[in-house]
């Protein structure tokens, strides 16, 4: 799946934290290096995201503040009044060519915050005050993909059991559903899988599980009674994209139980203009990033026409198998 980490940077204040020790036990061959603050390593100038991604390091840290962030306009808020996300981890073990993390973070190394209890208290406090919260749990990372050495998803599922006003969205490309399968489905939790045509997975979503493997995990989650969201987002205008995405819709129709699906969210590629600039500076070999994008208010996206074409094609293809009310446009 991913190369084991050769080095683990650890903030001095959490050297003795039980979770630090558990993680270190998972990587007995990694060289530990103590650091004062994760930003001393993570935020250094002139790091090369691409080169680091070849040999990513782990950084264990303590999050001191900001346990909840307001959701960005790029993401669908699914009409929730309190749409927030948290960052238990920064960066991802996968390497999708379109991933905005490449433009957002100066480093490709993976930061894991071990003080989950502080995240829980902040969330509780918010809930006490505001009575409801829709929390995206896997935002600047793919949290479930880390489950084997950073079992945060399990911990949040347990936390959510006692917080009826908390809704969670756990978005992933991983097939680690098995790691959380023992929990009984919580109606306030949405397991959201991002999927793409297999050819895109192979050529663009490097290191991620195959479409078939994802569908198997999704199928199992539906069968077990979880609320499942499918995200076909971003839809990419690769050569012959129409055929690839149409056949993806057909595969979904064939392989998934329509009733088990809460919604299918679709959206075209879009990105903060500065992120894209940074991405294209280091990732010069990805044609999807050099599309002739339309620029508007610091956002680059496919042109209005191209976006419409994408959304029309996709919603049309999906409507053959799913009810129109299940199809949501995440960004148009």
């Amino acid at each position, binding site marked *: 799946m991913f190369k084991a980490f050769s080095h683990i940077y650890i903030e001095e204040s959490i050297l003795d934290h039980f979770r630090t020790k558990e993680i270190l036990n998972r990587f007995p061959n990694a060289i530990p290096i103590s*650091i*004062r603050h994760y930003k*001393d*390593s993570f935020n250094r100038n*002139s790091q090369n995201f691409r080169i*680091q991604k070849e040999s990513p*390091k782990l950084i264990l840290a303590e999050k001191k503040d900001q346990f909840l962030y307001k959701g960005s306009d790029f993401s669908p808020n699914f009409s929730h009044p309190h749409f927030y996300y948290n960052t238990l981890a920064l960066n991802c073990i996968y390497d999708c060519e379109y991933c905005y993390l490449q433009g957002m973070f100066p480093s490709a190394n993976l930061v894991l915050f071990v003080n989950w209890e502080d995240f829980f208290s902040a969330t509780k406090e918010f809930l006490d005050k505001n009575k409801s919260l829709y929390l995206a749990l896997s935002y600047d990372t793919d949290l479930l993909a880390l489950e084997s050495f950073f079992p945060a998803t399990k911990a949040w599922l347990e936390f959510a059991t006692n917080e009826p006003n908390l809704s969670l969205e756990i978005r992933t490309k991983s097939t680690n559903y098995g790691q959380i399968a023992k929990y009984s489905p919580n109606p306030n939790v949405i397991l959201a899988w991002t999927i793409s045509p297999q050819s895109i997975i192979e050529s663009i979503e490097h290191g991620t599980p195959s479409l078939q493997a994802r569908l198997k995990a999704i199928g199992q989650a539906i069968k077990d009674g979880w609320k499942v969201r499918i995200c076909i987002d971003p839809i990419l205008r690769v050569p012959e994209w129409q055929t690839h995405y149409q056949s993806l819709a057909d595969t979904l129709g064939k392989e998934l139980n329509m009733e088990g699906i809460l919604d299918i969210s679709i959206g075209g590629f879009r990105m903060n203009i500065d992120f894209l600039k940074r991405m*294209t500076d280091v990732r010069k070999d990805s044609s999807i990033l*050099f599309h*002739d994008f339309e620029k508007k208010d610091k956002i680059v996206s496919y042109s209005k026409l191209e976006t419409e074409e994408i959304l029309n094609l996709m919603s049309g293809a999906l409507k053959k198998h799913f009810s129109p009310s299940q199809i949501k446009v995440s960004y148009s």
Partner: protein
Amino acid sequence: MSALFFAVLSEAKPWLTKLEAKPISHSGKFRIFQKDNHYIIISGTGKLSMALAVSEFAHTLSKPERNQMKVWNLGIAGSGRSEHKLGDFFWINKISDVSSSKDFYPDRILNSNFKKETNLKTFDRPVTKEKQRDRFISLNSEELENLNLVDMEGSGFFEAASLYFPLENIAVGKLVSDHLEGKFCQAEDVETMMAKTMEGLFEEWTRPLPWVNADSIETVDWPLVESFIQNLRLTETMRHDLKKSVRFFRLRHPNSQLPFPEESDKINLKSKTDLKNYFDQWRETLHV
């Protein structure tokens, strides 16, 4: 391309001999030796001298050259650990500057035949565990407790190098020359120890960085486009956009000829609007 910084000549000697490097004449203060694309620089002791040497050398290079340059600092270091043997070689994954309390983290990205790594503390003066030695800083047992290697250049080298060179190109390696007995090492001993380590390291130092690959769009496609557009008055933004479009085309069609507009149409470009249309149409042919 590779550059190697040493504090003193005795550390550098075996490398200079092996490389068959010759001193280059330049107007600077520091001694720079060269053979082909490889350079050896001798800074003199202390972090300030080392930082100045890095800066002086960096200024002899263009930015693209610096981006391709592997930059190392090798040298001797005292060890606070009795289990370290004389001549043991370590890559450094953390450098702490004792006087400024700054820490630096050289990334270990490339594999090496030398597997051992540790951290390094850079002091302003030589360090000893003995009491009151002339010209030495005496450390007490508490200070010695967490000490691995000590030197006088590492932080100066890394801080300066990271201003001029990409972080991932920079590495620091030290070999154990003493256990802080408070004596200065003999030049011959240093030379012998450095010669031993060099045997395994020379090839690693001269090997090009694996991530420095020629970009065929920069080297083949763009020069063609540049010569085509030289008498067109494109703005910087237009040139920038055109380059992106050329890249898009090349990535989508690795084996096709780059489409150019008709050369003869250039004569009819009378206004800015003409140029813009011409330019937009060209870019359209690239985004297929």
